[in-house]
């Protein structure tokens, strides 16, 4: 392309050229922000497929082992499951508030909401730990020591295998989320964000909401089978 090198582009770049948050390979802040947001959405697409593999296992084994799944689901503690659902929804609200505070340049609001979000996330993990230890006590951990005295032990073991795989992977994502939020909290404490630059807060929020959405599906699928 012969004349490709003839001219430089300056349109729109004047305003942002001195913004310290603009990386050198982007033309302007808008381009940088759009790239980061799109990148996070594409990453979340990969996460959908990642969890999707486990959901496929769930669908098949629930179809195969209906009785075992119902019996296994009865064994889960609905109270803790519902409480955790509420906790995650509240944490999504505080996360959304954190992003909103960042948009408004409200550093204090941002930090308070981030801390609330992290606290709720930690509470979720704590409750998950209580539930897991109850499962250990009841010996419903899949493997050689699995004990099941109700219907369909094979199906129940499949249920608990799926349960631990899915909730374990979800909890791992929560831990990663807490790590990300710590970094964001540190950055906001250092005053790195303002009205013109808050993309890291925004895309971390997307991740947090995604993990919340996974739980929105896990809760009814695992805890609410055949409660009637």
């Amino acid at each position, binding site marked *: 392309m012969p004349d490709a090198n003839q001219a430089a582009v300056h349109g729109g770049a004047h305003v942002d050229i001195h913004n310290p948050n603009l990386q050198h390979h982007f033309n302007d*802040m*808008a*381009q940088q*922000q*759009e790239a980061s*947001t*799109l990148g996070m*959405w*594409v990453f*979340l*697409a990969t996460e*959908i*497929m990642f969890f*999707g593999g486990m*959901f*496929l296992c769930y*669908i*098949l084994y629930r*179809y195969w082992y209906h009785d075992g799944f119902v019996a296994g689901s009865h064994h889960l503690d*609905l109270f803790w499951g*519902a409480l955790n*659902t*509420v906790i995650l*929804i*509240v944490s*999504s*609200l505080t*996360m*959304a*508030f954190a992003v*909103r505070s960042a*948009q*408004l340049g409200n550093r204090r609001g941002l930090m308070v909401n981030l801390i609330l979000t992290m606290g709720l996330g930690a509470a979720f993990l704590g409750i998950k730990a209580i539930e897991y230890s109850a499962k250990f006590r009841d010996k419903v951990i899949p493997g050689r020591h699995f004990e099941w005295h109700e219907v369909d032990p094979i199906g129940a073991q499949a249920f608990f295998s799926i349960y631990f795989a899915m909730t374990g992977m979800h909890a791992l994502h929560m831990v990663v989320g807490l790590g990300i939020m710590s970094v964001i909290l540190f950055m906001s404490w250092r005053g790195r964000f303002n*009205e*013109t630059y808050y993309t890291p807060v*925004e895309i971390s*929020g*997307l991740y947090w*909401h*995604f993990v*919340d*959405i996974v739980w*929105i*599906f896990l*809760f*009814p*699928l695992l805890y*609410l089978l*055949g*409660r*009637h």
Partner: protein
Amino acid sequence: MEHAHENAGHHTHGHIAPLSMYYAVFGALMVGTAITVAVAYVDLGFVNTAVALGIAVTKATLVILYFMHVRWASRLTWVVIVGSLFWLILMFVIAMTDYLSRGWMGVPGR
């Protein structure tokens, strides 16, 4: 210049929604959770699963549209979300079609 076209209409500052919207969505999510749990105790046969999934999808949609600001996002974001969900369902449907159509032939092992 398509690149510029994609940029057109974008607000660098993002969409700042009023607090009331967040509270409304939050309330809807809580109500949805309560209904899911309540319905689980009523025997509706296969409808139980349909209702539970329907509510979960609604809740997820609310989070995506309002908490994740997709309602105000670019068309490309929509394409990414819808495309990946479509792919996921494609995987489910094709794999489960295998399991559901086994035995139709009446030949053992097929």
